[in-house]
C-alpha cells in the first residue's frame, strides 16, 4: 500500500508539474494575444486612415466634376436672383401703396389712380407668373446643390461606424452619381436588380466602387487616345450565388499587362506615370472588400479591356 501511495504522490507531482507548465504557456500566450490585439487595433486604425486619405484623394479627382455640377444650378440661381432684384422695386412700390392705403393715408380713389399709374410701367401678369417660376427654379437649384453636397458628405465625412444593410444597386448608383462628370463620355450600362442586400460600411463600399470606376474610365481614355476604341464602354452586372453577389465591372479600355496583374493589389504599386495616382487605389479596394469578407479579382478580356469581379456576401438579415 505504501508503494501505491508513493506511486500516487509521484504521479501527482508529475501532474502538478505538467499543469504548471501549461499555466506558464497559457500565461505567455495570453500576453502575446494582448500584444496582438493591440497591434490589430493599430492596424485597423491605420486602415481607416488609409481609406480616409484615399477618399480625400478621390475628392480631388471629383472636385472638377462637382464644381461643374454645382455651377449649373448656381448659374440659373444667380440669373433668377438678378431678375428677382429687378422686380423687387416694382413689388416694393405695390406694397408701399397698399401699406399707405391700410394706414388711411390714401382714399379709395387715390389708391385706384396710383395703381393705374403703376400698372402703366409694370406688366403685373408677367410679374406674378415670373415670380412663381423664379421661386420654383430657385428651390429646384438649391435642391440639386444640396443633393450634390449630401452625396459628397455621405461619401467623404469620416465616420466612426456607418455599418448598415443596404442594396448593391444603391451603392453602384451612388458611385455613378459622384462620378457623373467623369462618366459623361462613357457609354455606361448598369444592370442591377433591386432587393440585393449586403451589410457593412456603405461609404467604404462606395469608395471601392468609385476606385474601380475611376480605373476603368482612365483605361478607356487611354485606349481612346491610342485610337484603339472610338467609344468608351463600361458595363456593370450583378449576379448571385447562394451566399454571395458577384458584381462585375467590364470596360473596353487599354487592359493591364499580364505581369502587372499579380501586383495590382499591392500598396503603392501603380502602372500610371510617376506623379499620377497614389498607387493605393486597388490596395484600398482590396482592404475594404476583405473587411467585408468579400474578394476582388481582375482579368483581361479576350477582345479588349478588363473585367473586375467583386464578390460580397449576402446580408444575413
Amino acid at each position, binding site marked *: 500500500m505504501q508503494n501505491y501511495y508513493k506511486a500516487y504522490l509521484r504521479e501527482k507531482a508529475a501532474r*502538478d508539474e505538467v*499543469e*504548471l507548465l*501549461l*499555466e506558464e504557456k*497559457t500565461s505567455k500566450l495570453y500576453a502575446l494575444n494582448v500584444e496582438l490585439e493591440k497591434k490589430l487595433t493599430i492596424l485597423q486604425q491605420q486602415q481607416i486612415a488609409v481609406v480616409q486619405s484615399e477618399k480625400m484623394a478621390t475628392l480631388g479627382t471629383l472636385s472638377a466634376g462637382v464644381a461643374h455640377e454645382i455651377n449649373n444650378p448656381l448659374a440659373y440661381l444667380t440669373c433668377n436672383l438678378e431678375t428677382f432684384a429687378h422686380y423687387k422695386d416694382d413689388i416694393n412700390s405695390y406694397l408701399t401703396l397698399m401699406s399707405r392705403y391700410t394706414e388711411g393715408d390714401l382714399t379709395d380713389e387715390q389708391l385706384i389712380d396710383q395703381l393705374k399709374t403703376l400698372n402703366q410701367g409694370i406688366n403685373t401678369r408677367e410679374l406674378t407668373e415670373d415670380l412663381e417660376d423664379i421661386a420654383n427654379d430657385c428651390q429646384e437649384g438649391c435642391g440639386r446643390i444640396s443633393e450634390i453636397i449630401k452625396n459628397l458628405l455621405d461619401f467623404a465625412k469620416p465616420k466612426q461606424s456607418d455599418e448598415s444593410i443596404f442594396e448593391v444597386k444603391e451603392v453602384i448608383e451612388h458611385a455613378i452619381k459622384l462620378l457623373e462628370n467623369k462618366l459623361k463620355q462613357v457609354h455606361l450600362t448598369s444592370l442591377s436588380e433591386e432587393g440585393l442586400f449586403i451589410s457593412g460600411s456603405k461609404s467604404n463600399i462606395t469608395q471601392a466602387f468609385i476606385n474601380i470606376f475611376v480605373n476603368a474610365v482612365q483605361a478607356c481614355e487611354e485606349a481612346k487616345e491610342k485610337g484603339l476604341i472610338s467609344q468608351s464602354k463600361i458595363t456593370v452586372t450583378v449576379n448571385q450565388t447562394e451566399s454571395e453577389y458577384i458584381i462585375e465591372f467590364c470596360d473596353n479600355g487599354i487592359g493591364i499587362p499580364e505581369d502587372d496583374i499579380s501586383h495590382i493589389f499591392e500598396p503603392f504599386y501603380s502602372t500610371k506615370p510617376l506623379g499620377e495616382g497614389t498607387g493605393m487605389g486597388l490596395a484600398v479596394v482590396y482592404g475594404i472588400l476583405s473587411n467585408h469578407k468579400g474578394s476582388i479579382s481582375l482579368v483581361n478580356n479576350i477582345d479588349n479591356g478588363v473585367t473586375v469581379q467583386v464578390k460580397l456576401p449576402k446580408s444575413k438579415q
Partner: protein
Amino acid sequence: MKGIIFRCLEELVINTKGMDVWEQLLEKHCPEDRVYVSARSYPDEELVGLATSVSQALNLSMPETLKAFGTYLFGFLAKRHTSIVEEFKSFEQLIISIDDVIHQEVQKLYEEPNLPTIEAKIYDEHTIHLVYRSPRKLCFCAEGLIYGCAEHFNKTIKIEHPLCMHNGEKECLLKITHS
C-alpha cells in the same frame, strides 16, 4: 468549476483522510474514471456533492466545511503561484486587490473561470469591508480564503458576515477586522 479547485479538494482529502476516502467520494459523486485537470471545467454539482460528503465525514456543517476548505485553498494556490502572492506586501493590500489583480491573473490562466465579483474597501485602519457576489453563493469558501490569506501574512483576523446571499440578500457583506 475549474479543475484546480477539485485538485485542491483531492489533496486535502487524501492528506487528511487517505486515498480510500477520496476514491469512495469520486465513486459516489462523479462519473467513472473522472480525472481532474486544473485548466478544465467540471460541473458545479460534483463539487457540491463532494463537499457535502466531506462535511458529513468530518461531522461539520456545510459553511464550516467550506470555510476550512477555503483556508486550505489559499495555501494550495499560493504554493502554486508564489510570484503572484509575493507581489503583495500585506494582508490588506492583497484583499483590496482581489478583483483588480488576482482575478486578472486568473483570467490569464483559465478560460471562462466564472469568477465572483469582489469589491473590497478599507473602512478604517483595522477594518475592511468586502462585498461578495456570485451565483454560486460560495461566500463561506471566500471567508475561508480570507482566513487562509491572514494565516499567510501571520495576521489575526475576525470576519463578520452580516449580509448573506443564503439569507435572500443580493450580495454578501464581509466585515474583516484585523490587528
